């Protein structure tokens, strides 16, 4: 007669995602920075509200000869010498909150919000493209050891060998002039899709290589063998078994990649090969501000600070996610070499 198994004295264990969520919730610092990120996004999304109701001007509206009344006194937006008005804060009811952005007399605050939307959009979209492509390529080349792996790996090697900034600038210059004609699609030269595609593609090798590395080690594990023994086909193994196990790595990489993409976009825009007028981004704002840096340093400092805060939040939060998903994770150094990592950064 068998002994009846005694019911376990503790509640059923939670799945790994729930445990991770709990750990993440306990990480005050990471949550705080996520909050900061959300705040920044909300700030930028509020651009039209601010522009219409407070500043009463658009991001590209110039006020070179305009005047604004501050505490009853009328002041020139741009002085005769060409010096733009400094931050008025609430002195004019919110107009020119951060001052004017130079000779053109545009509202810096409005531009900051609209520029932020561009920067965030590009970083996020590029990050998405990079992540999807890198995951696919990493999976394929890590799983299939036949001809697929060498082809993909060599291609990644070639991209990797091309100095990142040179490549991005080259593509930026070329595509900014003529736009992009590919597979019957036409992307006009001023579109923000150009920088999105450039950054998205250029960053792929830095993520694909570490993902491939992880796939290589995952595929040796027993659960893959078990799957094969059950007759699972390659696609099912790749997407049903390997991908879920990669999920935590991919999530962390994605967050860090958005951060790096934002930095690369700002560098390209600073060099005038990224976002093109009439669009603007924090990077282009730094470029225009740089011309006036001695007389109006805030015009440079402020957009750069926004980039710093956004990237910082993403980095800290990305780290928080990594810690939550596996607090004792052996740092996979090839993994580390891919992301949050100056090789993919613009210097």
């Amino acid at each position, binding site marked *: 007669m068998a002994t009846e198994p*005694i019911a*376990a004295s503790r509640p059923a264990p939670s799945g790994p995602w729930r445990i991770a969520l709990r750990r993440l919730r306990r990480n005050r610092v990471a949550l705080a920075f996520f909050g900061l990120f959300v705040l920044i996004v909300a700030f930028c999304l509020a651009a039209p509200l601010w522009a219409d109701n407070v500043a009463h001007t658009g991001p590209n509206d110039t006020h070179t000869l305009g005047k604004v009344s501050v505490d009853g006194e009328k002041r020139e937006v741009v002085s005769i010498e060409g010096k733009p008005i400094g931050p008025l804060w609430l002195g004019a009811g919110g107009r020119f909150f951060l001052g004017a952005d130079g000779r053109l007399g545009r509202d810096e605050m409005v531009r900051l919000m609209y520029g932020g939307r561009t920067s965030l959009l590009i970083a996020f979209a590029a990050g998405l493209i990079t992540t999807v492509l890198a995951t696919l390529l990493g999976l394929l080349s890590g799983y299939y050891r036949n001809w697929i792996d060498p082809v993909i790996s060599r291609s990644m090697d070639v991209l990797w060998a091309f100095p990142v900034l040179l490549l991005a600038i080259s593509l930026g210059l070329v595509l900014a002039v003529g736009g992009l004609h590919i597979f019957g699609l036409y992307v006009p030269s001023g579109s923000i899709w150009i920088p999105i595609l450039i950054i998205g593609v250029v960053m792929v090798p830095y993520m694909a290589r570490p993902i491939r590395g992880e796939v290589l080690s995952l595929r040796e594990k027993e659960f893959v063998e078990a799957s094969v023994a059950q007759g699972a086909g390659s696609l099912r193994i790749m997407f049903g078994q390997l991908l879920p196990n990669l999920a935590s790595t991919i999530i962390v990489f994605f967050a860090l990649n958005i951060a790096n993409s934002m930095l690369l976009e700002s560098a390209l825009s600073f060099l005038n090969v990224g976002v093109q007028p009439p669009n603007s981004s924090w990077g282009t704002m730094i470029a225009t501000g740089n011309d006036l840096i001695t007389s109006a340093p805030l015009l440079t400092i402020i957009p750069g600070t926004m980039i710093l805060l956004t990237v910082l939040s993403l980095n800290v939060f990305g780290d928080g996610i990594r810690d939550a998903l596996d607090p004792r994770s052996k740092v996979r150094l090839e993994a580390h070499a891919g992301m949050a990592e100056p090789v993919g950064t613009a210097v």
Partner: protein
Amino acid sequence: MSAQPLLSVSDLRVGFVTEGGRVQAVDGVSFSLAAGEVLAIVGESGSGKSVTAQTILGLTRGPNARIEGAARFRDTELLAAGDAELRRIRGNEIAMVFQDPMTSFNPVYRIGWQIAEAIRAHRPETGKQDAHGRAVELLEAVGIPNAAQRVDAYPHEFSGGMRQRAMIAMALALEPEVLIADEPTTALDVTVQAQILRLLEQLNRERGLATILITHDLGVVAEVADRVLVMYAGRVVEQGTLDEIFYDPQHPYTWGLLGSLARLDLPRPHRLPQIGGAPPSLLDLPQGCSFRPRCPHAFGRCAELPGLDARLPDAPEHRDRCWLDPESKQQRRVVEGEIGLEAPK
């Protein structure tokens, strides 16, 4: 025993502060080790056996650890010993080998170099040549063939069994009095396990090396041990000589361990016997006897924690933590003619 024991542990308690709460890994463990004796500590994972051993050598000290009690080695109180004192004793007088020899050696240095390092740390006057030569001798002593070539190999170039032998060789380098072996065979193949056990038994016999052998496998114990300590959820639940534990076990958990041993000399059972339930979470221990949820013989009194007492008049050193009277124990532990753990019919 008239001679003073080499190592004497009294009421050792080790708690850890973790993110889930406070965990009492070791809760009042006492034992002694005489010179030349082999003591086996048996238990499942989480029973506290490894933590006990590591605490003796001060490896568990840290900001999250709460250590109480005493562990006396010769004239030194180990739990209170300073760093310099501990360093002198580690490797030199008390040596330890761990479960996984692959990760226990530094992968970037040669085996011989790592052994020599141990030697020269305690005997700095030893020259490099001498230390190297000594390393070769040690490898030979533990039965590694071709020691003179092997000594310059890297850990990953050894097989699992040889790596463990090399670990033992390194532990013996300074001729310690006590060897603590923490699950030395768990990571090895069964045939290799037997070899390592035989080596330990040989070292004990030939050098009088007192040994604490920590394992979850009672079968391993039968080969080598003089005395046995059975641990469960941080406490000792039974202790006695090898014969006492194997032929006259008093605690239901011990019955379960014995009953679940695979035996070649008996007809095959219908089902491999097992102890029902699961080891308790140390964060959530039951009141009273911690084995109670899994014990088919539990009754009212078990809500009160039994003391570790000698309950047999002829065996004053045979202690256990079970309220059942000795006659009941004799009856209940027999299942289908052999010792086992099942509910009475």
